[in-house]
């Protein structure tokens, strides 16, 4: 017998990285929100790598923060090492990454969740999404309770019908031995939702005491700490950092792997899910890149209070004895003791083409989804979607316009647009090369790009928004001042230029032009810039980047202007593509399935050609002129 336990505005299924951000966003909009976890001890758990950020993922975390999310603040509280990657390259690809104390990360997130008004946590397995006539009504649990909801966000991660596999051992459990969610799949299929089966994997964890670090290279954190959250200052979060360690595989490792390939479930065909190209197991790497003499292996602490080390680079589903044998071939790991085995995990997820950009299902009003359930991979990708799904679930309940981020505004936008427009046949990982306007989507300006949007949606405070406006005014004013301030070829100027190996002046030049020279920076120009007022480091950084890269930035902004024009040409929701004779059959099929919202989105669908787009435009114009009313 099912009983009614309660009614909520928004119910979130799952309390991983997606579920947490979704629940927090909804609750912060003032909506009564309930979040389910299979275990309340696994909130914001990091079942794989113990770090947050990295290339493009660091961008996502900054964007989550700019949108009022929690991930950035939480990692700032719980990091044990931090580095800015790609410092030798351009500012667009500078990428922040922190090693997390994964236990404290989970604990701190749980604290925030438990103390957020309007938010309630509940341990239970959700077995049913209740919906009627294409509208969500609530969820049912294994214990027989029904929870009414105006909107539901599904964020089940890798738990749906999860199966962990290594060697010939196959366990029907979620990550880290947690209980799998076995029943929800049936309910989703019953609702007509198309599912995929994906695969990912994780390496073994080993005991720090069994490792000889003297035979490895130390990887230290940066002296200069850069917080993930725009609300934190470096001095607020400074701490003693903990090192990671680098070692390498060798011929012996590869031999052990090769000799045991027949025992791998991947090669014997036990695993049927699609694994990601960018997250290959060590056996994959050895087979596919058989010429490569060695592969890097990083040992990363899983936390401050544990001896467990994550063996990055050695993800594997080989049998336990082979995992031990191959790890013991690594320099410094001859005596190593495994604490947890590596394994591959298979799980159900959806075909994300069924979603709108709001992450709501096209066919089921009020049902949203986020994270690995949507076919993505990674904590950061999950959290970013969670925030968008949760905010949009809340905004829908409130009857307010949705939170939409487009490809020119953020990696969040690229991620979601890729998923809902192109779909994916492997767990989708964010990469900087997926962003076409990369130079504009920098981690340093995420607040400028997104916080105004978040403020409009009600996700960040007025104070925060006002602070951002002040910063933007200062940036603009300083660039204008540099443009107007001229310096001539005085002795002082020429000496300064000579000291930095810069060509001497022949006539007057603005400070802006000087700043564009690669060998000069804002700080170096101080002696010849007397009128300079003291500015915050963040303001100076923006001024410097905007001046130095203005050529590229302008070009990308022009491209964005073109892109936006196409995004604004909206396609009616109920357009019957098969009635447009001149479209090619492949295009009709794709357009029918994806139902793009705009000409721009349609043009990104593979299988829709530029000629098809032309046909669509003509068709739209034809119908606009006949004044035919689209049926609602």
């Amino acid at each position: 017998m099912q009983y009614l336990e309660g009614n909520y505005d928004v119910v979130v299924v799952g309390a991983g990285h997606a579920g947490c951000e979704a629940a927090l966003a909804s609750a912060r909009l003032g909506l009564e929100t309930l979040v389910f976890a299979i275990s309340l001890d696994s909130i914001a758990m990091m079942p794989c790598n113990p770090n947050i950020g990295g290339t493009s993922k660091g961008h996502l975390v900054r964007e989550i923060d700019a949108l009022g999310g929690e991930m950035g603040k939480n990692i700032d509280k719980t990091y044990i090492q931090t580095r800015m990657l790609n410092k030798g390259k351009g500012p667009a690809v500078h990428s922040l990454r922190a090693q997390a104390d994964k236990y404290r990360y989970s604990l701190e997130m749980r604290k925030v969740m438990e103390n957020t008004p309007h938010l309630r946590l509940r341990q239970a397995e959700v077995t049913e999404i209740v919906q009627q006539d294409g509208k969500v009504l609530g969820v049912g649990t294994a214990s027989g309770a029904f929870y009414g909801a105006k909107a539901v966000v599904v964020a089940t991660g890798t738990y749906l019908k999860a199966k962990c596999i290594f060697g010939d051992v196959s366990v029907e459990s979620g990550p880290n031995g947690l209980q799998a969610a076995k029943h929800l799949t049936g309910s989703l299929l019953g609702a007509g939702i198309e599912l995929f089966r994906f695969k990912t994997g994780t390496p073994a964890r080993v005991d720090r005491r069994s490792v000889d670090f003297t035979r490895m290279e130390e990887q230290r954190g940066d002296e200069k700490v850069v917080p993930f959250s725009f609300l934190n200052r470096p001095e607020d979060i400074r701490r003693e950092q903990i090192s990671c360690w680098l070692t390498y595989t060798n011929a012996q490792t590869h031999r052990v792997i090769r000799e045991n390939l027949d025992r791998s479930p991947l090669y014997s065909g036990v695993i049927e899910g699609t694994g990601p190209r960018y997250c290959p197991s060590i056996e994959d790497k050895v087979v596919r890149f058989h010429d490569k003499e060695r592969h890097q292996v990083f040992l990363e602490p899983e936390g401050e209070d544990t001896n467990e080390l994550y063996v990055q680079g050695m993800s594997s589903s080989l049998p336990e004895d082979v995992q031990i044998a191959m790890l013991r071939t690594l320099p410094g790991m001859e005596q190593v003791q495994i604490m947890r085995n590596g394994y591959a995990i298979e799980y159900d997820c959806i075909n994300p083409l069924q979603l709108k950009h709001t992450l709501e299902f096209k066919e089921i009003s009020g049902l949203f989804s986020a994270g690995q359930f949507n076919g993505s991979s990674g904590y950061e990708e999950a959290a970013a979607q969670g925030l968008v799904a949760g905010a949009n679930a809340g905004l829908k309940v409130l009857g307010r316009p949705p939170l939409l981020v487009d490809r020119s505004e953020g990696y969040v936008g690229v991620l979601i647009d890729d998923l809902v427009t192109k779909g994916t046949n492997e767990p989708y990982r964010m990469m900087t090369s997926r962003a076409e306007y990369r130079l504009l989507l920098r981690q340093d300006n995420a607040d400028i790009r997104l916080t105004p949007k978040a403020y409009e949606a009600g996700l960040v405070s007025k104070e925060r928004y006002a602070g951002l406006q002040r910063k933007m005014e200062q940036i603009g004013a300083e660039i204008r001042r540099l443009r107007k301030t001229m310096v001539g070829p005085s002795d002082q100027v020429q000496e300064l230029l000579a000291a930095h190996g810069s060509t001497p002046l022949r006539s007057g030049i603005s400070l802006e032009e000087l700043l564009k020279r690669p060998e000069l920076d804002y700080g170096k120009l101080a002696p010849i810039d007397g009128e300079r007022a003291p500015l915050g480091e963040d303001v100076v950084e923006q001024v410097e980047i905007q001046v130095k890269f203005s050529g590229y930035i302008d070009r990308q902004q022009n491209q964005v202007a073109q892109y936006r024009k196409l995004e604004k040409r909206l396609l009616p929701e109920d357009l019957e593509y098969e009635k447009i004779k001149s479209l090619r059959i492949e295009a009709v099929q794709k357009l029918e399935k994806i139902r793009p919202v705009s000409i721009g989105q349609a043009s990104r669908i593979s299988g829709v050609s530029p000629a098809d787009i032309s046909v669509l435009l003509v068709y739209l114009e034809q119908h606009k002129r006949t004044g035919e009313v689209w049926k609602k």
Partner: protein
Amino acid sequence: MLYDTIAAISTAMAPAGIGIVRVSGEDSIPLVSGIFRPKGKKPLSAAGSHTLQYGHVVDPMSGRIIDEVLVSVMKGPNSFTAENVVEINSHGGILVLRKVLELVLGQGARLAEPGEFTKRAFLNGRIELSQAEAIMDVINAKTERALQLSVRQLEGRLGEKTARFKDILLSLIAHIEASIDYPEYDIEELAVETVMDRLEALKGDMQALVETFDQGRMLKEGINTAIVGKPNVGKSSLLNALLQEQRAIVTEIPGTTRDTLEEVVNIQGIPLRLVDTAGIRDTEDHVERIGIERSLGALQKADLVLFMVDGSRPLEEGDRAIVERIKDKKVIVLLNKMDLEVKASQKELRELLTDHPVVPVSAKNREGIGLLEHHIKEMFFHGEIENTEEQEVLLSNVRHKNAVVQAVGSLDHVMEAIRAGMPEDCWSIDLKNAYERIGEITGESIKEDLMGQIFSQFCLGK
């Protein structure tokens, strides 16, 4: 793109005396200004709507005057497409028209898709609703056809070349992108010198390809012209005379036999494929017979025949035999050796070949060549002779060339960025642009290729 500026030759290619390059879009006026030098002081940007400006089209790179033109400016919405439209009226023939189009493209216009002016006119409300269906049908049909032609061309050496360009670009981009997305992996650093060397080499190859486009186009579009006559009437001297005049645009075609020598010349904007045939006569000589058969073959294919007679000697049976073979062709009769005493009967010639012009020349002294050229031009512009190739083939050629030219431009940007000390992620912006341009030829985009390349070229991932 929906609203960018497009350009194309908007008059039929062959038989018109005047051709028009039409440019439509927001930037059409500044774009044309970049190559137009007005006669008066008033710049094009100051020209009123629906006015004509007189001046010259100038190649901004070389400063060379390309043609004397009339430029009409029609500002939106009162134009055919309801956008700003500029039309360049040129009378210099196909080659000049093409050059003007290329210059406009070089200024940043995009070559119009088939039917695109009409499409825009419709989208902007300038064309009747009843035509919408027809327009939609045409778009895919035309594109399909253009694509098929393009694919056919790409099966050959052009396809191999573009595939190689893409391979090189993709491997460079993948290298840069992999090292950006995986900064901690032991990916070999790209040495600046190596990259520069590779880019220079690639650019050289691309430029060489661009040049072959020009030649290939001449070959494709040229009017097949056979020079026939008995042995030793002066055919080779005529060929040399024509070549002498047009030395700049001559192409030697490899693989031609010593019997039929083929050259391409530009006669006042009209490309001619000249075939100098072996002298035609009855002979028992086996080798010579082979040459003569080839000559007769060339004669068959010819759009225009230049029939040469030795004017210093009376007409012979051999001349009359040739006349029999060329009666149905477009013929210009050349009475050679006008510097000597004329003995051939012009009257008889005119009777044998009625309505065909007879031009006295001296090939050796290059006299009368101007008059010959005049006749060729007249016949061309009156539609009497035209090339028999399909026009779409030519069009896609311009498209291909333009794509490669733009790719070269992107490579220049990359090299500039490298010299200016810009970081790698900036290089890859223009490398990707170069790839996209080459990809346009085959309809492929980097999006689909890059991820695969990164993960097959490098071993990455946790």
